[in-house]
C-alpha cells in the first residue's frame, strides 16, 4: 500500500484507546495451556513415512516406535542419522527374526536425537515410525538411551485439549 502517513494521534485519544483495549481484555478468556492437567491433542498418532510413494503422513514427531517384525537391520537409519546427530546405534538383539539375518536393531539415544524424522524417511521397510509421546525426561543421560525393546512399546499419550476460538477470544479448552 502507499505509505499511509499515520495521522498524528492526539495523546489523549491514544491513552483512552489503550486503556479501553487493555480493559477489554479483562473480559476475554485466559489463553494459557495448563500443561500437566491439560495436554495438547496431536493430529493422528505420530509421523509415518510411505517409502513406495516417497512421501510422509502428517503426524507429531515424538518418540520413535520400532516394529521388530519388519526391521531387517539394514542400518539405513543409522547411516542417515550419522550425518545429523549420530543418535542411532545398531545393537545385537537376543530373539531370532527370519528377516533380520544379522540380528541387529537401532537403539536411539534421545540425548542426541533432534526429532527431525529423517530416519523414518530413510527406512524402506515401514519398520520405524514416530509416535506423539514427547515426555522423555529422565534423571541420568544413560536412561535417555532407548533400547530396541523399549522402542517397540507403544506409548500411551492421552492429550485431549486443543485451541478453541469464539466470541470471547481463544483458549485451550
Amino acid at each position, binding site marked *: 500500500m502507499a505509505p499511509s502517513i499515520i495521522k498524528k494521534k492526539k*495523546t489523549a485519544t491514544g491513552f483512552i484507546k*489503550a486503556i479501553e483495549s487493555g480493559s477489554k481484555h479483562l473480559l476475554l478468556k485466559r489463553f494459557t495451556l495448563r500443561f500437566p492437567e491439560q495436554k495438547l491433542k496431536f493430529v493422528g498418532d505420530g509421523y509415518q513415512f510411505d517409502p513406495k*510413494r516417497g512421501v510422509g503422513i*502428517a*503426524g507429531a514427531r515424538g518418540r520413535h516406535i520400532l516394529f521388530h517384525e519388519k526391521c531387517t537391520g539394514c542400518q539405513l537409519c543409522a547411516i542417515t542419522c550419522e550425518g545429523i546427530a549420530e543418535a542411532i546405534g545398531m545393537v545385537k538383539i537376543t530373539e531370532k527374526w527370519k528377516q533380520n539375518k544379522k540380528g541387529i536393531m537401532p537403539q536411539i539415544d534421545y540425548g542426541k536425537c*533432534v526429532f527431525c524424522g*529423517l530416519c523414518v524417511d530413510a527406512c524402506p521397510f515401514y519398520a520405524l515410525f514416530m509416535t506423539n509421546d514427547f515426555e522423555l525426561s529422565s534423571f541420568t543421560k544413560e536412561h535417555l538411551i532407548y533400547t530396541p525393546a523399549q522402542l517397540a512399546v507403544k506409548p500411551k499419550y492421552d492429550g485431549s485439549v486443543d485451541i478453541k*476460538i469464539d466470541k470471547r477470544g481463544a483458549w485451550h479448552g
Partner: protein
Amino acid sequence: MSKEYDREFEKKFQETTRLGLEVVKESEEDRLMTLSVGPQHPGSGHFRFTIKVDGDYIVYCDPDPGYVHRGEEKMSEYRNFIQNIPHLERPVIHDSTNITYSYSLAVEELLGVEVPRRGQFIRAIASELNRQVYTLYWLAIYGIFLGHSTMFMWPAGDRELFIDLLTALSGARVTHAYNIPGGVRNDAPDGFKEKCLQYVKYFEKRLVEYEDIFYNNPLFRQRTENVGVLTKEDAINLGVTGSVLRASGIPHDIRKVEPYDVYDEIDFKVQYMKTCDSFARAYVPFLDMRESCNIIKQLLDKMPDSGEVRLKLQSNPKGQPGESYKRVESGRGALGYYIVSDGSPKPYRVKISVGSFRNILALPHLLVGSKLGDMPSIYWALNYWPVEADR
C-alpha cells in the same frame, strides 16, 4: 584491585597540588564510560556490542558478533543434500521453513528437478505461517525491550496459534525440517484448511488490538518516532534488507521482485513506509503480518486439492557440477544460498547470506549520536537475530 588504584591516584593527586599545578585534569578518555552491552544482557540476546557513553549520549559503538558461531557453512560440506536440512535450520529455528526454503530451491536447481504444484503451495503456506511466527516473536521482544510487558504477552500468546498450525502440518513445533529439496516432507492433514482459515480470521481481529495498545500509544510514538533515522541513500549504501529497507521507502520484497515457486500467482502489495525512523521499522513488520494474512487466504483457496507434494528423489541425489544462487524473503529480509556442487552428493561450498548479518552494519551508523535510552528501540528495530548472523 581498588586498593592499588587509590594509592596510585593519591600519589598523582599530591604530586600535582604540591607542584602548584591545577588538580588532575580530566582527559577526554576518562569522561567516556565504556559499556559492554554484552552477550549476557537482557537487552541484546547472544550478541555483544561495546558502546562508549558520554553522559546519556552514545559516541562509539562496535558490534562484536560470533558468540554463537557454529560454522554452518563448514558443516554443510560434510553432509549430503538431505542431511543438511536439520542443521541448516538451526540459525533461526522459529523461521525454519524460510531459512531452508532457499536452500531447497538452490539444490533443486542443481538437481534440475521441479516440485509438484501442490507441494509448492503447501511450502508457500508453511513459509507464510512461519513468517508470522517469527514476526510475532520479534514483536514480543520489541515490546519487552520498551518495557511494555503486555506487548510481550499478547504476541507470544497469538504465536501459539500459528505454532499449532505448523505442528499439525509438519509434526514439530519449531524445528520443522519440513522443507526438503524436492518439496515438503508430508501432505497437509485433512481439516487443515478450515482450521487455518479460522485462526487467520481470528488473528486479523487481534492485529487491531496490537495497534490500539502498542502502535498508537503516544508513549511508544515518543520513543520511536524520528529515532535512529536511516535515510534512503544510507539504506541503499549500507545494503540493508527486509523490513529495515522497506521502512526507508524502498518497496523491495523478494516475493514480488523475484517471485519463486507460486508467489507470481498471488497478488499482494509490498508494504513500505517513507519515514525511515525506528517507528517505521517497527510498523512495517506489522503491516507485513496483515498482508501475510491475506496471502495465506489466497494460497489456501488457490491450492489444488490433490496431487503429489514431494518428488521421489534417489536416496542420495547427486548435483550437476555448477553453482546456483537462490534467495527468499525471510522474516529478516533477503536470505540467499550460494551453493557450488562438484557432482558428488555433498555440496562443495555453501554460502548463506542472511538478512541479520547485512542489517547489523546499520547499528553503529544509527547508534552513534543517539541516547542510551534509544539503544533498545534502535537495536531491535533492525530485525537482528544474533544466532542467524553468526551462522
